């Protein structure tokens, strides 16, 4: 059995006007990258703050690396690194002074910090500039430094709250590369808040989707996509008629089929068999040039999930984490 890094049960936080986190039950195995996905205001930041002991839960309980988040919050923080919504760097200090401060705050000896600074800043191309005041740096540089700062004491648990928010696409991609390098390093467990779906697909081994404080899906990104995501079929060829499209549209495992610029596009359920459809097309005399299949991106699946939860007014059944 894999060991569990984060476990919450019935975790709830009420603010005067809103329930930010609602009966959250999560289990995150150690050593993986977990993506916590949700739209604005869904409770991602509040969840991380509760886990770090910065906000008290109204109900429920949680442990991080085996430490209770209320009674042993100091131990949780000692074992964790965090990059919250704000980079949280002292802009009037140099990059090196920042890392020294946070390293010492984590109980490191100055002699151990210097080599760690080189080790972290080297690959980020910031080592040569460590003597500069952080306030003069670009947003992307600050954000990379903030990741290094969160990792300075080799934490076993790393919290990242929307680390690429506010970066241009290139800086965001660079940071994602850096995260991949740094995070895979020492088998650290990563909890990353994001509403950037491509980021989650690229980085995460496991995702949870949260909406209005409630967990509405949990699993491997592919599974979450597969569960709500539809399969797509696109056929390019000569002789596809409207009648034929209507015939395909009527098939039981086809959700919808349309003719688009002479091409057939169909959304299929998981049970649909593509060879059967292709055979039907050939039988009806279609000259097939190309058959493309695809599935929705996690982004589309995510939107479908949120919509589904809206329509049904209830949560989509949560997968049993123990089943993994």
């Amino acid at each position, binding site marked *: 059995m894999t060991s569990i890094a984060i476990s919450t049960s019935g975790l709830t936080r009420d603010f005067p006007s809103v329930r930010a986190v609602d009966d959250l039950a999560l289990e995150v195995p150690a050593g993986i990258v977990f993506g916590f996905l949700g739209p604005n205001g869904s409770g991602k930041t509040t969840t991380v*703050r509760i886990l*770090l*002991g*910065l*906000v*008290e839960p109204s109900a429920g309980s949680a442990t991080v690396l085996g430490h209770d988040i209320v009674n042993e*919050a*100091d131990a949780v*923080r*000692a074992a*964790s690194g*965090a990059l*919250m*919504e*704000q*980079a*949280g*760097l*002292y*802009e*009037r*200090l140099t990059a090196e*002074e920042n890392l020294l*401060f*946070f390293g*010492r*705050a*984590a*109980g490191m000896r100055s002699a151990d910090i210097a080599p760690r600074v080189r080790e972290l800043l080297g690959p980020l191309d910031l080592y040569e500039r460590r003597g500069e*005041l952080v306030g003069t740096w670009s947003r992307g540089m600050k954000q990379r430094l903030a990741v290094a700062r969160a990792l300075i004491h080799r934490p076993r648990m790393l*919290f990242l709250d929307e680390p690429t928010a506010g970066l241009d696409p290139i800086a965001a991609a660079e940071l994602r590369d850096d995260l991949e390098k740094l995070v895979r390093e020492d088998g650290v467990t990563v909890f990353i808040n994001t509403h950037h779906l491509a980021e989650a697909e690229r980085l995460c081994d496991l995702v949870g989707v949260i909406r209005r404080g409630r967990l509405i899906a949990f699993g491997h990104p592919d599974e979450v996509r597969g569960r709500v995501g539809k399969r797509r079929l696109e056929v390019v060829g000569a002789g596809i008629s409207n009648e034929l499209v209507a015939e395909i549209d009527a098939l039981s495992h086809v959700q919808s089929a349309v003719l688009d610029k002479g091409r057939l596009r169909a959304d299929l359920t998981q049970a649909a068999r593509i060879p059967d459809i292709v055979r039907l097309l050939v039988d009806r005399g279609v000259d097939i040039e190309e058959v493309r299949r695809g599935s929705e991106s996690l982004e589309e699946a995510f939107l479908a999930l949120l919509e589904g939860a809206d329509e049904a007014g209830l949560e989509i059944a949560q997968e049993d984490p123990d089943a993994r």
Partner: protein
Amino acid sequence: MLGDIWLIVNKEVREVVLRAGSSRATILNLALILLVFGVVLPLQAGAAWVDSWWLLFSWTWLPLFLVSALVADSFAGERERHTLETLLTTALSDRTILFGKIAAAVSYGYGMLLSVMLMSLLTVNAVWGVREGRLLLFSTSVTVGVLVIGLLVTLLIAAIGVMISLKAKTVRQAGQALSLGILAILWIPGLIIALGARALSEAQQQALWEWASMLDGRAVAAVSALVLLVLDAVFVGIAMRRFKRSRLSLD
């Protein structure tokens, strides 16, 4: 824990005092304070600088304002510059952070008080001491009084200021509230005495004055120190109870 408190003091002085503006402006500011209170005033006063009770009031209030400037920034500044939440995610305990912030303000104010005191002694001796052919020093009771009461008052302002800064949205707001508080502390007793004196008859005023001038300065200082010590303990205690990171407004 002492090491961690020192870590915060060091960061605070660097961030909020030394690097608040350009480094030139900072050095100029500190130099100006030393120049005015450590050179110009003692030069004008001459030997009276060390003998006169009244002249003490020309420079001993200095730490009040230096401390309040730094302590107003303590939490409100971190909040304003978006570093508070990250500071709170570190392994530093609530107590360490609180004591670090208080210690930083006290070190700055008290440090400047000591510097001005030393500087002024150097100045009066270099000019007037040499001229009069004697070593000019504050009396022992004045020295002890300034050192002890200075420390206690600085600590008091720091403890009150840190609580105001905890609640304040901006440094400016904290600074204003604290300045008003200090003015109140300085003026209200004076006002009460002035009004009270007016209510008394001439003979009573005369009697009170005679009684006051017969008081032993050392005893007054000792009682003041004791009262301040109690106030310090109370306010630091309240600050310790109030400061819990899980109850702080982070944004």
